[in-house]
């Protein structure tokens, strides 16, 4: 789904998101229900499009937008729209310290969270390794569209580096969430809070309950628009600021060890795998 379509579905009440060199920024009006005041309906939006490689400039532009939101709109929720092929693989980026630019972006997002800005990530197309780790993965909670591609790297490159035959990795990826790309696997491992179904029919009860203001919009658009808009409104209302991903991964059967190991270390106990 292109970002313009996505934005119109997420924000049926309107948005002013613009694209500049694959960098997205602006704000949108959330379908927060009749009772919500105007300020609570506005969400700051930052992100990338066109499978952008995350180089130092675009990382810094995103950080700047986060800091501006913290300064000018205290408490305003932030939605990070993720579409990236990963960090930019250039000597210049490394020479200038791309890890510091990524860390700066991550710290800005983390700071915003702790200042009371709810921060959500949404992988609407593609998310890879370094481009994901300081965007969606550092939000309070990350979501994805069902068709989203999420992975560390492609299986051929993984085979080359790990020296494990590609056939074997392909076979393992069939039913092992650790190796297979895709939103569903990240959901099972707790890396995603939920998958947002954009189509009509899904989330329909919530949509009916929450998306009152635009009930008069054209029927074909509103059926799918309201599903994403209501998913966003619901997430904004429900998200928790603590990192629950290990517990989710354990409960969903995608990561059996992480929660038990972290708890054992933290409390001085033994590991009791799920």
């Amino acid at each position, binding site marked *: 789904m292109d970002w313009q379509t996505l934005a119109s579905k997420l924000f049926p009440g309107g948005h002013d998101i613009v694209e500049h060199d694959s960098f997205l920024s602006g704000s949108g009006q959330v379908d927060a229900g009749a009772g919500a005041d105007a300020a609570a309906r506005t969400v700051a939006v930052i992100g990338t499009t066109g499978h952008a490689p995350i180089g130092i400039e675009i990382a810094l532009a995103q950080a700047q937008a986060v800091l501006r939101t913290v300064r000018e709109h205290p408490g305003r929720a932030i939605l990070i729209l993720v579409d990236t092929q990963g960090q930019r693989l250039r*000597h210049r980026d490394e020479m200038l*310290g791309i890890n510091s630019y990524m860390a700066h972006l991550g710290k800005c997002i983390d700071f915003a969270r*702790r200042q009371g800005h709810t921060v959500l990530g949404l992988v609407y197309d593609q998310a890879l390794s370094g481009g994901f780790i300081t965007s969606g993965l*550092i939000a309070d909670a990350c979501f994805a569209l069902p068709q989203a591609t999420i992975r560390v790297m492609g299986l051929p490159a993984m085979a080359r580096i790990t020296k494990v035959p590609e056939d074997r990795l392909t076979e393992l990826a069939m039913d092992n969430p650790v190796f297979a790309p895709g939103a569903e696997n990240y959901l099972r491992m707790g890396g995603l809070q939920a998958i947002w179904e954009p189509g009509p029919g899904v989330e329909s009860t919530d949509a009916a309950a929450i998306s009152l203001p635009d009930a008069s919009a054209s029927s074909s658009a509103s059926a799918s628009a309201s599903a994403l808009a209501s998913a966003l409104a619901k997430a904004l209302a429900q998200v928790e600021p603590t990192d629950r991903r290990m517990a989710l991964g354990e409960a969903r059967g995608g990561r059996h060890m992480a929660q038990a190991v972290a708890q054992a270390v933290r409390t001085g106990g033994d590991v009791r795998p799920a």
Partner: protein
Amino acid sequence: VSSYLERGARGRIPAIFDAGSFEEFLGPSARVVSPHLAQLDVPVSFDDGVVVGRGLLGGQRVFGAAQEGGFMGGAVGEVHGAKLVGMLGRAIDEGAQAVLLLLESGGVRLHEANAGLIAVSEVMRAILDVRAAGIPVIAAVGGANGCFGGMGIAARCANTVIMSEEGRLAMSGPEVIETANGVEEFDSKDRALVWRTTGGKHRYLLGDCQVLVADDTGAFRAAAIAAIEALTGAARSGAAALTLDALQAEQAMLERRIRDFGALAEPMDIWRQLGVPDPAGVSMLEADDFVAMAAGHRAGPVTGDR
């Protein structure tokens, strides 16, 4: 002089912390190993490549970790990451004076792909939880495998980065860049270029590393004690946490870096522009002489929490 680089994680811990003071959490005798490696016919390690625990450092109660570069390059898998996250949480629970991370890692353990990626992001968040609790986090980078990928990002989430000249701190390894964009983009066999691009002296001049020391465990120990003291003294109460001012200063520093050096192709050109009198001679300087030479030529703030 005892080389930091040549020691493994279990050799570094007793050399850095006060003698006999370190207590390991979930040590190798617990045999908590990676659940993902056996199916790939890859050997496991009983500590999954990381030591975590608490000890005394200059008499202060400091929690710490050391990644073992000898096991899968120190890369972060599910168990490895969870041990770090658990230790960082416990540092908050028990009111640690500071956390010291002896980092040596290629980043995400590709054998545990998705689990490793999520784990690294959990480590980042846990580091920032510790800082938000007012506890300083110090990262040391001086191992043969450097500090790359997501752990290169995590290192820069610490209050202070201590490096040796031999330490390397970056994101993508030179081989990855060469594979993606060709040898003319980054020749990974050109060791001098790799060092100039990612090594401790370059990071120190740029301002991405706050303390540069010789490859000596005693020097790393002394630098860690000094860094903790600087961040926990009475006048610096609360200095560990992120602030809007500090982040805006970092934003300005990183913008300045692109403006001043973004058109340059070679690290030595950056050093020359910074006013380093003899860029070609930088590699020959011992750590102390280099630090003395670099005074007044470094980009970015010389001291302070960023």
